[in-house]
């Protein structure tokens, strides 16, 4: 009875949160985003063409997409077998394993990225090994490279893929995998024809989280990429703090948003397409 009755009082419960989000979130963010659609006070897309005409900006954009895509794909490839292993562990270990994976997500991103500064620095362990083995005379510059940002983001975002795949695999109906095996499918066929199609929703969720996370992670890009290897987020910060170029910042904000929304949509479509095949 209670649930089906439209009640004017319900607006009293909704209004405070809605007004708060409207006033302190939607309004300022919309105002910021709209700035990029104006050129000298006239509506238009001129700021975007100007932004993408700059080679540095294009480079940053392509790099951001490249790193985020690579991290998403690699984390999926690595996490499928790992998640499968977790799901098949005996009960008590499975709980422990889930806790171990979730714990890093609760930790400050600076703490989670810091280790790579230690390991990849000029006097870090990786360089010690490289020079020790005689692979290079001089310590290599490993920090402030695209590789460093990629490794850092992969480590930061992998738990999101892993937890999504674990819960998808846990919900896999009964013994479909063993059934496929006993009917003569090999391990690869079981994965490709049974496991993947039945867990693709988890894959889409995990992929969305990892991709969005990579595109919008500030700390890792700032610490491991520095001003040399800029991503969209660090470029935005630089435009504001170094150049006070608010229009460029607003353009980047729109680009960030559109990119994540498009990527999410694309992943959803891919997820569905595989289902129909």
């Amino acid at each position, binding site marked *: 009875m209670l649930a089906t009755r439209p009640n004017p009082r319900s607006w009293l419960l909704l209004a405070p949160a809605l007004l*708060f989000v409207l006033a302190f979130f939607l309004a300022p963010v919309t105002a910021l985003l709209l700035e990029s659609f104006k050129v000298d006070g006239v509506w238009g897309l001129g700021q975007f063409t100007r932004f993408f005409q700059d080679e540095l900006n294009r480079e940053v954009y392509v790099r951001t997409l490249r790193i985020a895509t690579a991290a998403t794909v690699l984390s999926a490839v690595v996490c499928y077998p790992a998640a499968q292993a977790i799901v098949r562990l005996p009960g008590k270990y499975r709980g422990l394993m889930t806790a171990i994976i979730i714990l890093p997500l609760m930790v400050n991103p600076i703490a989670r990225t810091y280790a790579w500064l*230690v*390991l990849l620095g000029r006097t870090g362990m990786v360089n010690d090994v490289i020079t020790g083995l005689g692979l290079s005379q001089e310590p290599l510059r490993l920090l402030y490279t695209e590789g460093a940002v990629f490794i850092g983001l992969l480590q930061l975002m992998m738990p999101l893929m892993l937890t999504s795949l674990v819960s998808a695999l846990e919900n896999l109906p009964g013994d479909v995998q063993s059934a496929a095996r006993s009917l003569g499918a090999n391990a690869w066929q079981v994965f490709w024809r049974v496991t993947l199609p039945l867990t693709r929703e988890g894959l889409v969720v995990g992929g969305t989280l990892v991709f969005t996370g990579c595109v919008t992670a500030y700390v890792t890009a700032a610490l491991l990429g520095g001003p040399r290897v800029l991503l969209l987020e660090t470029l935005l910060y630089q435009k504001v703090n170094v150049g006070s170029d608010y229009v460029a910042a607003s353009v980047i904000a729109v680009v960030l948003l559109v990119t994540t929304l498009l990527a999410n949509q694309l992943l959803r479509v891919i997820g569905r397409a595989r289902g129909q095949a």
Partner: protein
Amino acid sequence: MKASRGNLLMLALVLIFLLGPFLVVFLSAFSSGETLAFPPPGYSWRWIGFVFTVAAFQSSFVVSLGVAVIATLLSLLLGIPVAYALSRYRVPGAELIRTALTTPLIIPGIVVGLGLLRYFITLYNVPVYTGLIVGHTALLIPYAVRVVSASLGNLRVDIEDAAYTLGATRLQVFGRVVLPNIRGAVISASILAFITSFNQVPVSLFLTGPGVSTLPIQMLSYMEYTFDPSIAALSTVLVVFTMLIVLGAERLLGITRYV
């Protein structure tokens, strides 16, 4: 089906990749050396002790704690009624409301911070502290709504109807029937919200000001000029701090579940 050897090997590699960095940070935190090196030249508590004496860390810790606690409470105060209304009443445009309230999760934090800075804080001369609380609260509302909604969905409406029939007022029903039943979800939402705010960087980036900074932002600016083991030490202290909160709450939940 048992886990195959290949899968277990991959799991081991993933765990090393995910957790190894923490080991590096822990060991560096207990370094006895002046500068950051791994493995450290020797072990001591000096840097752990040192981070507690840095005034900038002390003051920004207090700011972070204050902002996280207030933003968490505000987000629950605003979010729980929404979760209740959406799960118990037929609200026209419910989907739209849900979408509007979850946008803070979709918009990159740095955009939120910049938007607030330009169109709220500088416009109305808002104090830094207020700006941080407002930004963080907007970000946390979706967590509160989502976690509490899930719990309310599992709670049968009959018991509320029963309480009404027996003469309870709306507030009594909420306080005596609904709230005790969703306590677990409220605690989970608070932990999630607290940690999200306490660790927040992108939203705070443009919102901190002269003299008022959050701990993560303070750590970032410290790292620009100094390369000693103190950030490793502080990271270790923070990991222990977060673990205590999570374990403490888990414990609390575990106890309340049996009471």
